[in-house]
């Protein structure tokens, strides 16, 4: 039986709360009245989204509520949802004004134009596939990004949020794929090598000239694709007959001339005059659009940088080559005769480097630089091949340097050089994309006596630990009475022979087998460095780490130690104490000693980053141990409370989904009620007494890894 619709009064009550009408004065009565006309599941759908959006911004939720009832009959729920999530993303990224604009755009949804939206290909769904697709095609590595329309600047391909020109989902995907292929072909086959603005400037109507040029290039690239990717070309023709009018006769002649295998951009340019005079100009629904400014900007930024990079890399290559030619006389007088021959065959771009006539294998990075330069010029210009002299370039300017994490704060507020992590917004029931701005920072080592003092203080425990952990070391041992093995188990054999003489059945467990120890564990310890750990807890944490390291060194497990803290989502910081590659040396000891309480407890990003690091390590078992002093918290932020608990819970779930075993040690003595929920995916333990920590942590580690 269908449920009865909500009454207006019921809905008003909820809406008053969600939309905070006491302060915002939104007229929820009108909205509720409008909603009463809908069926129950439609009401639920809209109310649910109002509630979810309200957790992000009340005005957006109100705007959504006002528009949604009218949209529901003509828009698929899937799309309404995508629209709502997109609005929230825009709000996260660029604020309320832009988000409201996105909200309004939905009103301009013209039904006829959008009748296929239900079957549309959403960017989120197709981007991962097309990203790999374009990566498989040869040439420069292009990124796929979401934007307002389909275009490319030679380094990335931008696609609109929804491609919905056809009534069939698969066809829409094919259309997106063809668009991507055409945009890729622009980079691959040299459409972007010219200064579009300068060429257009020669004409009275530059806009008209650019449209004509783009059409010419589309024709040329289509022919190119017909040869390179015949399967794709077939799809292209099929969709074009459905979507686009037939080519006018004059354009058909142009098409034939541009279809020759050796047609280049120059041929298109040569025909631009003719095309300019044509009264009409064909357009295809798969061609995307031309953004000369973006192309020029990307190219300008790229050229000098790549020239410098290539020349430096070539100099390095030569140095290496010279170093490997030991015994050969060095003759610095004659400049090396370096030559690069591009080979463009079978959809593969390759380069042969010859040095004084002898071939030299280019490393991958050099090959990629050569590819990129070749795509920009159609050749490798000779001046790119003079290896850079010493000090000719400042490597700081040429190569992307790891940003000094503190420098970004002395100036404008930006996210350069940071890694971005999503965060789970439980109100919205969706991730906030690229929300946490994460940076790794080193801990300032404190060279003091802390390490020694700790060992002295816990001398008894250390001895005990050593014993326990040595017992734990899975030594090689002989397993007796096995069905298969390296050698014969004589005891078993004698017994078995006696048995068989006796008339009993003879056992087949007659071998000894070497059991070999293979403890293959990688573990990350994530230590709370928030301000609340100041004092006892901080000291106990540091002591615990010292004892842990002692024990782990015995076991030979690979381990890393990081601390986390932060202020707001813009400043999430992870402190490197020991990476997997660091040895447990004096510096690491000094860093443990140097752990100081910092700011707040935002946990999600730290868990996500650690999960990522752990998954890069080759190990059978991956363990993530967190050590914290209580509930997630952040400065003047929603993170305090349910939001933070839910985000932490989600991050732990994500970790265990990738196969990492999370384990949480917490010192929170109050408010334990939320812990089972927050640690849902993880096992956890609550310690009452801070002083127990150093002894307990090691013991816990022993328990969870055996």
């Amino acid at each position, binding site marked *: 039986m269908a449920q009865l619709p909500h009454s207006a009064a019921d809905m008003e009550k909820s809406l008053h709360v969600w939309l905070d009408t006491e302060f915002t004065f939104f007229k929820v009565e009108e909205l509720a009245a409008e909603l009463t006309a809908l069926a129950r599941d439609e009401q639920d759908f809209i109310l649910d989204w109002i509630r979810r959006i309200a957790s992000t911004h009340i005005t957006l939720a109100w705007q959504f509520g006002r528009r949604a009832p009218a949209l529901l009959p003509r828009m698929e729920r899937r799309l309404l949802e995508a629209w709502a999530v997109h609005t929230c993303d825009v709000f996260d990224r660029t604020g309320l004004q832009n988000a409201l604009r996105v909200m309004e755009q939905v009103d301009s949804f013209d039904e006829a134009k959008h009748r296929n939206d239900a079957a549309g290909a959403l960017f989120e769904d197709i981007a991962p596939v097309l990203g790999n697709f374009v990566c*498989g095609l*040869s040439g420069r590595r292009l990124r796929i990004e979401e934007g307002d329309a389909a275009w490319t600047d030679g380094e990335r391909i931008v696609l609109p949020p929804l491609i919905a020109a056809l009534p069939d989902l698969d066809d829409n995907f094919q259309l997106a*794929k063809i668009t991507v292929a055409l945009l890729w072909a622009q980079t691959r086959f040299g459409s972007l090598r010219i200064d579009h603005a300068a060429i257009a400037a020669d004409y009275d109507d530059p806009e008209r000239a650019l449209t004509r040029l783009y059409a010419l290039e589309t024709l040329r690239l289509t022919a190119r694709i017909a040869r390179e990717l015949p399967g794709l070309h077939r799809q292209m023709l099929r969709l074009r007959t459905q979507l686009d009018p037939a080519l006018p006769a004059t354009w058909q002649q142009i098409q034939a001339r541009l279809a020759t295998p050796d047609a280049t951009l120059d041929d298109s340019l040569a025909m631009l005059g003719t095309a300019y005079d044509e009264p009409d100009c064909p357009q295809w629904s798969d061609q995307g659009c031309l953004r000369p400014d973006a192309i020029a900007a990307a190219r300008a930024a790229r050229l000098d940088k790549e020239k410098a990079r290539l020349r430096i890399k070539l100099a390095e290559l030569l140095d290496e080559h010279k170093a490997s030619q030991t015994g050969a006389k060095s003759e610095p007088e004659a400049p090396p005769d370096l030559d690069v021959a591009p080979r463009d065959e079978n959809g593969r771009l390759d380069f042969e480097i010859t040095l004084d006539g002898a071939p030299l294998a280019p490393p991958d990075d050099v090959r990629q630089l050569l590819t990129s330069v070749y795509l920009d010029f159609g050749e490798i210009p000779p001046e790119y091949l003079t290896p850079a002299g010493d000090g000719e370039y400042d490597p700081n300017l040429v190569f992307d340097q790891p940003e000094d994490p503190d420098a970004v704060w002395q100036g404008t507020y930006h996210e350069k050089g940071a890694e971005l992590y999503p965060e789970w917004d439980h109100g919205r029931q969706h991730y906030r994309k690229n929300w946490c701005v994460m940076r790794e920072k080193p801990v300032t080592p404190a060279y003091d006596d802390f390490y020694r003092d700790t060992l002295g203080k816990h001398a008894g425990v250390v001895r005990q630990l050593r014993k326990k952990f040595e017992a734990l070391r899975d030594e090689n041992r002989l397993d007796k009475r096995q069905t298969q093995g390296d050698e014969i188990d004589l005891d078993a054999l004698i017994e078995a022979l006696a048995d068989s003489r006796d008339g009993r059945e003879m056992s087949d467990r007659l071998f000894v087998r070497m059991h070999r120890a293979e403890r293959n564990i990688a573990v990350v310890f994530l230590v709370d460095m928030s301000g609340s750990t100041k004092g006892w807890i901080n000291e106990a944490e540091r002591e615990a780490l010292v004892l842990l390291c002692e024990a782990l060194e015995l076991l030979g497990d690979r381990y890393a130690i990081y601390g986390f803290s932060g202020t707001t989502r813009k400043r999430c910081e992870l402190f490197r104490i020991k990476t997997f590659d660091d040895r447990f040396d004096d510096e690491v000891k000094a860093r443990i000693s140097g752990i100081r309480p910092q700011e707040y407890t935002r946990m999600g990003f730290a868990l996500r980053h650690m999960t990522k690091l752990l998954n890069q390590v080759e190990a059978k078992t991956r363990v993530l141990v967190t050590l914290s002093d209580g509930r997630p918290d952040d400065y003047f932020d929603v993170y305090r409370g349910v939001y933070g608990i839910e985000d932490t819970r989600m991050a732990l779930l994500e970790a265990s989904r990738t196969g990492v075993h999370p384990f949480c040690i917490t010192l929170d003595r109050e408010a334990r009620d939320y812990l089972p929920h927050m640690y849902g995916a993880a096992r956890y333990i609550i310690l009452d007494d801070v002083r127990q920590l150093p002894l307990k942590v090691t013991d816990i580690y022993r328990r969870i890894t055996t």
Partner: protein
Amino acid sequence: MNARTLDPAQHLIEKEPYYEAVGDEIQLFEAAYRQQIPVLLKGPTGCGKTRFMEHMAWRLKRPLITVSCHDDLTASDLVGRYLVKGGETVWVDGPLTRAVRCGGICYLDEIVEARKDTMVVIHPLADDRRTLPMEKLGQIVEAPPEFCLAISYNPGYQSVLKDLKQSTRQRFVALEFDYPSAALERRIVASESGVSEAIADNLVRFAQMTRNLKGSGLEEGASTRLLVHAGKLIADGVSPVTACKSAVAQAVTDDADMLKAIQELSSSIF
């Protein structure tokens, strides 16, 4: 129908195994064989290492004993062990010992997968001593001049943990294998699978695309072997797109997005 049972130590490869030389690897191997130097074959999976060994065994007219190493392979699996037969213990030679005794070619495939103690066994065989000590018998077997040791290893995907030790690798002459050039690969695919040159060309082009994806989601691109599989399916009447899906895409990845992307690449070509 009866399957033939062969003793690898006695069996010589009768028919020439198809192999297209990429460079001078055949001459190099023959020289190393004559000079009694062991050989290390490096290269990605499916690029023809095993086929090369078969070809060389045929060329040199020696029996080929291949051991595919796995992480449970111990030294006694190679050298031999005592077994119990009717109340008595009997020594049984392992494949390595058999190869030494009969002067054959012993090929240890993916050597780094084996346990570390196996390396120690091959060391005395791999330097100028050319002996195989058999601790449990208290004997030393001297390898005849015909004996040859070859190992293979794929530097690409194995972990750092399983890297070949310097003390091992510096005993060998190394031959590097890579995917053959496009023209050569086309010829291999065409002659191995029986498809036309045009289809072989498209298959090679497709393989190149998957190799472009190496490092951005794929551990390894499609190998020549996979192309031959796909080619054989096509020659048997399977449509090229389906053949590429089953023989190549599904073989290189399980990731759904990556599968779809590879699918789209193959359907773009065929």
